[in-house]
């Protein structure tokens, strides 16, 4: 179905079984994603990562997923067999995780890992895969690709490892890229560089992008739309592409005010007062 949205989620509920009682991580989330850049912003435990893991079939066995609809390009993802998931992940939907050095296997060189990806998903020969891997690393602005391919993840800086991770995730030529806190472990200068790099690649390749973050002001500039999540629900949708956001929901307004700015320097920061009504 070429006209179907990239990702179509309707009334998603995710519950985690715990010894005490089930915990509702996501409570009735709906979203439709086209070829656009969507940011999902929320605090720890708001359900943003759980939602993305449901879309990738990566939730643990203790999670139960219920939804009216959970589909990628019209293909139903609910109850998909493990084998079908493997053909989807990496090839059609790829995810860049927070800590690149955890996303890589420490015991194989970067080259070995990228080649595995290219041979599996793109059916290249090993020689062609090596050349493609070099080209991919050059594309993410790594200066000496053939040298870096021979290195192991621990030999790379955080920023370099994240660039390599993005290159590897783009190698499968996915239609949808999910960046789950992809810049949270990096310093602020590198954060901007990595977001700009993701942005360039997404535009050039016409992919859909979902940026997951807890930093609203950081991702606002790199997203067309922003969904603000609180306690498992979307509480507000904002138009992105600008630093001048116009939030209406008190949670979103509170989030923006908590951030230190020259106006707050040396004074007490406003703190978020949580209204039980936000849970309703």
């Amino acid at each position: 179905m070429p006209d179907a949205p990239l990702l179509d989620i309707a009334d998603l509920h995710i519950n985690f079984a715990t010894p005490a009682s089930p915990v509702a991580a996501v409570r009735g989330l709906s979203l439709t994603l086209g070829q656009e850049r969507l940011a999902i912003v929320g605090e720890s435990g708001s359900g943003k990562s759980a939602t993305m893991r449901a879309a990738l079939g990566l939730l643990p066995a203790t999670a139960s997923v219920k939804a009216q609809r959970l589909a990628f390009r019209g293909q139903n993802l609910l109850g998909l067999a493990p084998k079908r998931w493997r053909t989807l992940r990496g090839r059609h939907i790829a995810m860049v995780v927070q800590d690149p050095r955890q996303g890589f296997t420490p015991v194989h060189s970067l080259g070995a890992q990228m080649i595995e990806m290219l041979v599996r998903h793109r059916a290249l020969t090993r020689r062609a895969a090596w050349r493609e891997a070099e080209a991919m690393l050059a594309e993410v602005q790594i200066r000496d690709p053939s040298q870096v391919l021979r290195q192991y993840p621990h030999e790379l800086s955080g920023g370099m490892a994240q660039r390599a991770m993005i290159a590897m995730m783009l190698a499968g030529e996915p239609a949808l890229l999910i960046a789950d806190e992809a810049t949270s472990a990096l310093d602020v200068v590198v954060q901007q560089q990595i977001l700009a790099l993701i942005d360039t690649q997404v535009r050039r390749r016409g992919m859909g992008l979902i940026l997951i973050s807890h930093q609203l002001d950081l991702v606002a500039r790199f997203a067309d739309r922003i969904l603000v999540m609180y306690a498992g629900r979307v509480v507000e949708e904002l138009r992105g592409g600008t630093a001048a956001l116009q939030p209406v929901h008190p949670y979103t307004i509170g989030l923006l005010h908590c951030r230190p700015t020259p106006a707050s320097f040396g004074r007490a920061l406003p703190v978020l007062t949580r209204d039980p009504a936000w849970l309703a």
Partner: protein
Amino acid sequence: MARVTAPLLSVQDLSVAHGQVLTVRGVSFAVAAGASLGIVGESGCGKSTLLRAVAGLVPIVAGQVAVLEQVLPTPRQKQHRRLLQIVFQDSLAALNPTLTIAASLREPLAIHRLGDAGQRVARVLDAVGLPQAVRFRFPHQLSGGQRQRVCIARALLVEPRVLLLDEPTSALDISVQAEVLNLLAELRRDLGLAYVLVSHDLAVVGQMCEQLAVMAGGTIVETLTRTQLVARAAHHPVTRALLAAGMPSGDIPREI
């Protein structure tokens, strides 16, 4: 409050080596009681190593650290360690996962032979805004913000003069960061502590510190006052890059 002329913490020509490489090269700074110095820089500039060296956690190859004009020896002795306490970025890694919070908090008291452990723990939990019930919890049962409060409480228990803060809020949500930064500011004011705060986030440093030092390649390349920071009066390219990436210019709507 009377102004103290002699600095509380004074660091002179401090150098740290990793093998043959000097990761901190001849760094000097001073912090008065009740003052707060921010140290900023990109990953790998040596800012965390500097903080660890000041704390006595990594050996120094040259220079000295003095508190109240008393030069601290290497290796440090117990009474020196008590003067300077450190709070790390990752609170889960900083707390022993097999100990309850009460047991973790009693450890420094036992080491320094401070009596009244029960009362001291109760008081410090109040001071950092934690309910007494957290005593019986394990680190993994607390939220990230609560755990960082426990780490701050543990640092305060031995009544230090200097608190060394290594990215204390980088692992926290923005709303929780605001609460922890407010707590740290209150404690500094109430207890007259000196802070050295390491961060890559200029907004956090501007919030907390009147002075900041920018590090690159193991040395301090520029120092700024808060006023200069707000005016973006920086010269070094590293400072400019940090300003461009991480300082809100104030165009965020602040009125509800």
